[in-house]
C-alpha cells in the first residue's frame, strides 16, 4: 500500500517510492531521501511533528509538511 511518509508509524520500515522534487529541498535528496531507499521512523515529537527518521543509514529530522511530499510503501508492521 502506498502512502505518504507522514503516515509512517514508529518502528515501521518502508521503501521510498517517489519524491515530489519541487516541494522537497535538494538537501534532503542529497541526504539520501531518494526513490528505492529504505526509511524507518525512529522517534516522533509530540503531535508527530517533526519526525526523526533513519533514511538509508542517515539519521535526520524533517517536518510533517515536508513528509507529505514523499510517497512510500510500507514493508513491515
Amino acid at each position: 500500500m502506498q502512502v505518504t511518509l507522514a503516515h509512517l508509524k514508529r518502528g515501521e520500515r518502508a521503501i521510498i517510492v517517489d519524491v515530489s522534487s519541487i516541494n522537497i529541498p535538494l538537501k534532503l535528496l542529497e541526504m539520501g531521501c531518494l526513490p528505492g531507499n529504505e526509511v524507518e521512523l525512529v522517534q516522533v515529537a509530540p503531535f508527530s511533528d517533526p519526525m526523526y527518521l533513519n533514511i538509508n543509514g542517515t539519521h535526520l529530522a524533517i517536518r510533517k509538511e515536508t513528509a507529505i511530499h514523499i510517497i512510500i510503501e510500507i514493508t513491515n508492521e
Partner: protein
Amino acid sequence: MSKQINVALIGNPNTGKTSVFNSLTGLNQKVGNYPGITVEKKEGICKLPRGVKAHIIDLPGTYSLNASSLDENVVIELLLNKNDKDFPDVAVVVSDVENLKRNLLLFTQIKDLEIPTVLVINMSDRMKYKGISLDIPYLESQLQTKIALVSTRKNEGIDNLKTLISNYKELSITPCLNASEIDKEYFDNLRKAFPNQLLYKLWLVITQDVNFGKTDRNEIDAVADFKTKTKADLKRLQQKETIKRYQFINNTLKKGQTIDLSTAKDLRIKLDRILTHKIWGYAIFLVILLTIFQAIYDWSAIPMDFIDSSFASLSEWTKNSLPEGAFTSLLAEGIIPGLGGIVIFIPQIAFLFLFISVLEESGYMSRVVFLMDRGMRRFGLSGKSVVPLISGTACAIPAIMATRNIESWKERLITILVTPFTTCSARLPVYLIIISLVIPEGRFLGLGYQALTLMLLYLIGFGAALISAMILNKVLKIKSKSFFVVEMPNYKLPLIKNVALTVVEKTKSFVFGAGKIILAISIVLWFLASYGPGEEFNNAEEIVTEKFASKHLTEEELQNEIASQKLEYSFIGLTGRAIEPAIRPLGYDWKIGIAIVSSFAAREVFVGTLATIYSVGSDEEETIKNRMAGEVNPILGGPLFNFASGISLLLFYAFAMQCMSTLAIVKRETNSWKWPILQLVLMSVFAYVVAFIAFQILI
C-alpha cells in the same frame, strides 16, 4: 621563502572536520571573517614532510556543493574561482566512517571539479565497534584518490595524511561522474556553447547563482543557441544527478565496505529513547537548562567579583601613582573601567560557550532542535531558534551569531530581532539593585518576593521575545523557503581539545569584537561626564566651597559635593536635564535620565553611572542603595525610588534596546541598517509606553 601549498578541508557537518583541522595545525590557527560577510574563516599552518608548508583552510561544513546557506556558499565560491588566493592545490575531503555513503556524495562533486583530492575517513576507531571493514586499495582505485584512515580521538593516521597531502601532485584528477550522463542533449549543447569550460563547473554556475572567474550565469543565459531550463527542470536534473552519484557510490561501497551488523552496537537507540522522549526528553532538557543558568550566575560570580575588584584597585592605583591630569583621569576613569566592563563578562561568556560547545559536540543539540521545533514554529521561529534564545540570557551578541544555521531567512531574521528581549546578564545588576530598593522582603509560598520578581522578569523577557516573534511572523512579508532538515548525528564524547579551542576562540572574538565598541563608548562617556560648557562646571570647586562654607563639611564630603556639581553641569548632565521632561511621566528625574542615556551604550553602565551621580566615593552596593533610597522626587515628594517608579524602571530595562554592540552585530548579520534601527525604535518606544502605563497606574 619555503614552498607553501594551499589545502582546503571540506566535509559534511559532524564528520570531525574541525578535529582534523586542529590535529593538523595545533595552535597555529587563526579565525577571521570572509570579506564582507560574517562567515567565520578558519585557517592555519601545518608543516609537511620534506620542508613543505601547508596553508590549511577549514571551510564551513556542507552536505554538497549545492549551497543553501551563506556558509555553504563560501565553499563553492572558493572552489569555482581559480584566481582566489586561497584556491586549493589540494582538497582534503573529511568523511565519517559510519556515514561513508552520504559523505562520498560531496567527495564525488569535488572530484568532478578536477581538483586533486585526498579522502580522509575519520573516526576509524569506531570501525570495530560498528562492525565495519573497508577494502582501502579497492576504494582508492574506484574513487581514484588516496585515502587516509584517521582517528583524531586516538591521534592516529595524521602523519600519513600529511604525507599524502605533500604528494598531491601524484593525485588523479579524473572525475567520478560524467556530467553528460545527467542529460545528454542538454550537456552536449552546453559543451558546444562553452568548449573551453569544465562541464560540471558550468552546471554549478547555472544552478547555484554564484559568480566565478569571468563566467557568470547571465553570460550563459545570453548565449543564443543555448537555453537554460526552468527552475523546476533544473531541480529535476539535480535530482537525477544526485541519483547517479549515489548509484556510483553504492556500486563502489558494495565491494569496498562490509558491515557486520551482528557485532555492531548501538548506543544511539538507547539514548534517543530517553533523550527525545515526549516527556523525559523535555524533563532532561529542563534540567540541563537549569544547570547552565546556575553556572552562568552562580559559578561565574567568583571570578567576576575578582575581576571587578581587581579593576577597581587598578583604577585606584593609577589615580594615585600617576601625576594628576586629564590623561590620568581618562586612564583611571575612562579606559580602565571600560576595559573592566568588557573583561567582567569573560567568565559568563566562557561558561556559556563551554556548555554550548559540549552540547553541540556530543550531538545533543540536534535533539533539542528536534524537541522544540513544533512549539517554536507557532511563533514563527524554528527549533533552531532555541539555541540563540538560550544563549541570549548570557549575551545577545553571541546569541545572534548563533542564528546562522537557520536556513529559512524569515525564521532567522525573526530570531535575530527578538533575541535582545531575553534577559541578558547585563540587565542583571540593574534588576538586582532596583528590586532590592522597591520590592519588600516578604515571602510567598516559601519564595521571596524579590526572587519571584526576578524570575518574573526573566519570564517577561522570554514572553516578549515569543509574542513579538508571533507579530513579526504575521507582519513581515518575506517569502523564503522554510525547510527544515536536521541531521541527528551519533552521540560522541566531546573532545576536550575541541571544546577548549572553541571556548578560547569565541571568548577572544567577544573581547576584541564587542570590546572595541564598549571601550570606545566608555571613553566618550568619560569625556562627556568630565567636561562641561559653562561657568557652573568650570568653577565648580569655588561655587561649591562657597555654598557649603558655613556647613563645616569634611574634606571628603566636600569633594563629593564638587563631583556631583560637576556631573550636573557636564555635557552628560545637561543632556539628562534636557530629556527630563520626557521621562518625568515615567517617574524618573534627570539623574536616572543620565543613567538611561549612558546605558544605551551598555545596560550595566546604569549602576556605575548612578554611583557616580550620587557621588558615592566607594562603589559598595550597600552605599549606593542607601543613597538611592534617600533620593526624593523633586515634584511629587516622597522617595524617588518607590514601588511605581521602580516597576516602571524595571519594565523599561526589560524591553528597551540599550546595547550598541548588539545593534552593531545585527547590522553585520542582516547586512543592513534597516533592521537594527527598527529594533532600536520599536523596542524603545514599546519600553517607554509600558513604563509610562505602569507608573501612571501604580502611582
